[in-house]
């Protein structure tokens, strides 16, 4: 399969006075053409930092320590601002979590979407009105001829998110990075937006990196899922395989929570996510792991291929002859 994006050994640290936060600590990941790759993780697992890095939006104090992010073979971490601009927003579209704050309250939404065209192609904003209306049709905004003149406060949250999606797909990007695009919306709207993203993927054959803490949502739409824990990937695999047979103890725990929802009480994962300034030695999950072995606190497991899936766990890798 054709790779659109290749992340190699990426480490992104935040240099703070309190210490160095290892938000992304050695991530390897591929995104293939036309797939929806879900990245799941708790708050503070580094998934948003990963999204910002892919989108080329990292700001100090975040710092890329090592690694590459190859988009179509070009390392976007080494690009200058001007070069980045030709990719970001054109080849890579971005959708953010909170649609409300990304629209200027004093301009019509049509103007603001037109501004995206103007920035990329030049000319007057008004010239692009037809294109904006077509985009609004594409993201299923009802009555687009009139909606382009609406101000953000006249639109609902779901509508605003559609407007932002239309901005992201304006230039028909090859990759869309969606950082929690549905977290600020209620569940019914969530389903519509997810459906819309799925349609866009089919129509434009775009790859989508869908980042969320909502694993259940990913099971619905993602082709593959990458589970992140404390700055590292713990398991990457096809969605149904991960659901059917999670290998990593952390993934197991997450899936079991979803499965046993109907019973009285789901089994919680004991403890909480570790500090990223002083992560535990060895496997970062070992203090909370129910299957912990003595060597877990000494050996940092690598992501290894287990029957077409990638898992970083001494238990699983060991049984396959791999391991650290």
């Amino acid at each position: 399969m054709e790779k659109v994006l290749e992340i190699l050994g990426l480490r992104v640290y935040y240099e703070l006075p309190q210490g160095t936060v290892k938000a992304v600590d050695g991530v390897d990941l591929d995104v293939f053409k036309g797939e929806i790759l879900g990245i799941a993780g708790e708050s503070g697992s580094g998934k948003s930092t990963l999204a910002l890095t892919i989108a080329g939006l990292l700001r100090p104090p975040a710092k890329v320590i090592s690694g590459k992010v190859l988009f179509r073979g070009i390392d976007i971490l080494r690009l200058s601002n001007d070069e980045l601009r030709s990719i970001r927003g054109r080849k890579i579209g971005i959708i953010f979590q909170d649609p409300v704050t990304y629209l200027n309250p004093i301009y019509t939404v049509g103007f603001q979407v037109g501004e995206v065209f103007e920035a990329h192609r030049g000319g007057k904003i008004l010239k692009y009105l037809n294109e904006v209306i077509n985009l609004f049709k594409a993201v299923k905004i009802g009555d687009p001829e009139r909606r382009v003149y609406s101000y953000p406060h006249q639109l609902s949250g779901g509508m605003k998110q559609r407007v932002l999606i239309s901005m992201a797909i304006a230039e028909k990007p090859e990759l869309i990075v969606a950082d929690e695009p549905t977290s600020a919306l209620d569940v019914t709207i969530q389903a519509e937006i997810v459906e819309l993203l799925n349609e866009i993927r089919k129509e434009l054959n775009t790859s989508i990196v869908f980042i969320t803490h909502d694993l259940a949502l990913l099971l619905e739409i993602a082709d593959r899922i990458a589970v992140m824990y404390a700055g590292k990937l713990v398991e990457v695999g096809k969605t149904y395989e991960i659901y059917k047979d999670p290998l990593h103890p952390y993934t197991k725990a997450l899936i079991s929570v979803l499965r046993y929802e109907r019973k009285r009480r789901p089994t919680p994962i004991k403890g909480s996510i570790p500090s990223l300034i002083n992560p535990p030695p060895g496997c970062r999950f070992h203090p909370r792991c129910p299957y912990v072995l003595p060597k877990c606190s000494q050996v940092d497991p690598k992501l290894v291929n287990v029957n077409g899936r990638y898992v970083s766990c001494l238990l699983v890798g060991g049984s396959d002859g791999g391991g650290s």
Partner: protein
Amino acid sequence: MENELILKNLSEARKKQLIAMWEVFKSNRVAYTSLYVLLGLIGLVIVGLFYTPYNPYDFDLSRARQPPSLKHLLGTDELGRDILSRLMVGGRYTIGISFISVLLGSIIGSTLGLISGFFGGRIDTVIQRVVDVALAFPTVLLAIALMVSLGPGILSLIVAISISTFPTYTRLVRGVVLQVVNEDYIAAVKLLGKSSWYIMFRHVLPNVLSPIIVQTTYYLGFSILLASALGFLGLGVPPPIPEWGAMISTGRVYLFSSPHIVVFPGLFIMITALSFNLIGDGLRDALDPKSRMFLRRF
């Protein structure tokens, strides 16, 4: 053809918005009335450019200090000059000076505030220290000091009032700009690769425009008072120009025997200043998009 239709829709959308603003403004009865009072006053001053019942400079001691009558609607002053005529002529100085100087002060002050808040860093520090110094003086005292050093005259009056009003604008605008530049939508426009000046004037300025406009209406009232106060102190336009403050100043000797000489210019000053302030209140509501939405729903 299609583009024409789109343009028509756009101008209609803008028109609708203006109408909505006007409706909100109208719903504030006090502000609405003040607007007409002010328009009437300005109309009187405009008429004064072409016609006055009497020559405002013609003195005739035989008809000095006459109370209001049909012949002299607002009476005559201590030299027998018609007060209405003098007010009609003096208004162009009082109102004109305050308009021009507040306009100047708001443009300079807002631009500095915009730059200060948008770029931050060293530019911000320098501008803010200048403002600190300017704000350390009481406004009236600063204006008096400037008038004394610049010498009397219309131009120095304008300069004095603008200099004493601009620091407040800078502070006000900088505060709002600091809020706006941290909004995600500004970050989003930056990502599109737009220049700082484009972002500053296209996206930040319109967001801070309504506090500027409201502040300006308040300051118009204030500067009329300031211009009159300077005129009263003899620091404004030189006599015999019938600037309203100067009229009070010369008439104050007869405050008890012929109060109308002082009362009418005083009333004119008060009504003008009050109207500006009340209109400012109405504008503040009308320029808030949320109150427009509120009106449309009910």
